[in-house]
C-alpha cells in the first residue's frame, strides 16, 4: 500500500472512530445510524488488499468490542473476516466506481449487522427478525450510500485516488 494511501486511511479511521463514539447518533436519520466500522474496514480492504483488510478489521473491531465492554472478539472476528473477503475481491472489482462500493458496502453491512443483532438478541430468531428491517436492512442501505458519498467528497477535495488500479494511484 502506498504511503499516501496509508496515512489517508489512518486519518479516515481515526475520524471514523471519533465520530462513531460521539456523533453517530447525530448522523441518524429516523433512528437509523450508519455502520461506520464496516465502512472503515471495507475501504481499508479495498485499498490495501486482504492482509490490510484483516488487520484493519481486527484493530477496529477490537476497539469497538472494548468500547462496548462485552463480547470481546465478536466484532473483531466478524470484521476481520469481512476485511479478508473484500480485500480478496478488490482486484476483480471496479472498486473506484461508487456503484461497486455501494454493492460491497450493502452486502458486508448486511452480514455484519445480521451477526451482531443475532448475538444481541441472544440467538432469538423471532426477535432478530423484528429488528432486521430497521437495524440491519436500512442501516446497510444508509452505510452503502454514505461510503461512496464520502469517497467522492474526499476525491473532490483533492485526495489521491486511493482505490484506483495500477501503480500510479495514491503515490503522492
Amino acid at each position, binding site marked *: *500500500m*502506498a504511503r499516501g*494511501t496509508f496515512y489517508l486511511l489512518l486519518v479516515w479511521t481515526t475520524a471514523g*472512530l*471519533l465520530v462513531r*463514539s*460521539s*456523533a453517530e*447518533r447525530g448522523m*441518524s436519520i429516523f*433512528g437509523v445510524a450508519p455502520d461506520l466500522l464496516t465502512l472503515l474496514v471495507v475501504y481499508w480492504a479495498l*485499498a*490495501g*488488499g*486482504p*492482509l490490510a483488510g*484483516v*488487520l484493519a*478489521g*481486527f484493530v477496529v*473491531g477490537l*476497539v*469497538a*468490542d*472494548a*468500547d*462496548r*465492554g*462485552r*463480547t*470481546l*472478539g*465478536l466484532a*473483531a*472476528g466478524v470484521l*476481520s*473476516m469481512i476485511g*479478508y473477503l473484500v*480485500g*480478496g475481491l*478488490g*482486484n476483480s472489482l471496479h472498486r473506484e466506481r461508487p456503484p461497486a462500493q455501494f454493492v460491497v458496502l450493502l452486502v458486508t453491512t448486511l452480514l455484519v*449487522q445480521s451477526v*451482531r*443483532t443475532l448475538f*444481541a438478541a*441472544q440467538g*432469538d430468531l*423471532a*426477535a432478530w427478525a*423484528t*429488528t432486521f428491517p*430497521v*437495524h440491519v436492512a436500512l442501516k446497510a442501505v444508509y452505510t452503502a450510500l454514505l461510503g461512496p458519498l464520502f469517497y467522492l467528497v474526499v476525491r473532490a477535495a483533492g485526495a489521491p485516488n486511493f482505490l*484506483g*488500479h*495500477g*501503480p500510479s*494511484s*495514491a503515490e503522492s
Partner: protein
Amino acid sequence: MPATSGLDDRRAAAALVAVELLCVLLLVFGNRLPVDALTGASTGLLAPANSILRWIESVATARSDATRLRGEVATLRMEQGRLADAAVENERLRALLGFAERGRPRLLPVQVVGVSGEPWPIVFHLGSGSGAGLAVGQAVLSPEGLVGRLTRVDGGTASAALLTDPNAPVACEVVGSGVRGVLKFRFGSRPGLYLTAVPLTDTVRVGDRLATAATSVLYPAGIPVGRVLRVGREESGLLSEIEVTPMAPLSRLREVLVATDRPDSTWWPKPKPVVAVVDSARGDSLASLARARPDSARVDTASGVR
C-alpha cells in the same frame, strides 16, 4: 495499487486464521481479561477529542441555547417562588406529623463522551471518573428521570449501564397505586422496556408513571423512570405485559447527573435485615421464609452489577 501476489494471499489467509483463532479465544476467555481497563483505555483515548467536538458543537448552539435558557430562567424563578411556599407548608405539616426531614444526594453534572451498544445504546461513557467523586453503583440521572447506574469507574472516565441494558434491571413501582415490578429491557416480538413480575390482578393503566421502588437496594427511591405505554397479557396468562417508555431521552442525552453522595436513610430507605425468629410451633424461621420468596428489589442486586 500493485496486484496481490500468491504470497500475499497466503500471508493474508494465515493472518486471518490467526486473528479468528484469537477472536474465538477472546470470546471464550474474554471475561477473564481486564475488560474494564480496555474500556477505560478506549474511552480515555477518545475522550479529549470528543470533548473538543462537544465544545465546538456547544459553541455553535450557544446563541440559541442562551435565548431559550433566559425564558426558562424566568419560568423557573416563578416556579421557585411557588415551591418555596410549598416547602414552608410541607415543613410545617411534616413537623406536625413527626416525619424526619429528607436528605438529598449531591448531583454532579457529567458529560457523555461516548455511547456504545448495538442495535440499542446500552452504555454511556462519561468524561469524569473517581477524581470527581464518581464510584461504581452510583445512580445516573437526567432532569427527566433515571438513566442507569455506574458500572465502571477509573481516574478520569466512567461507564454507565443504561436502562436499555438487558443485564441491568431496576426495581420500580407505579406512582400512586404502588404496584411493584422489575423493569427490564427485553427482546421478543416487540423489543423494549417492560415492567415484569406484575400479576394480572394488579391494576396498571396506560399513562401511569413509574418511579424507583422504595425497596430498591441500588437506587434512591422515587426517581421517575418511565411511563406505561401499553398494557397486555403475557403468554403465560398469569402476568401483565407492561411496555414502558423511559422518561429520560436516552438517545439524545449529552450531559447526565450522577448522584455522588450517599443520601441519608430517610431519602434512600434500606430494607431492614430479616431477624431469624424461630417459630416454635412450626419449627422453621421467618428468615428461611423470606429467602424462599424472592423480592423484586433484590433482582437488581443480583444481576445489575457487571
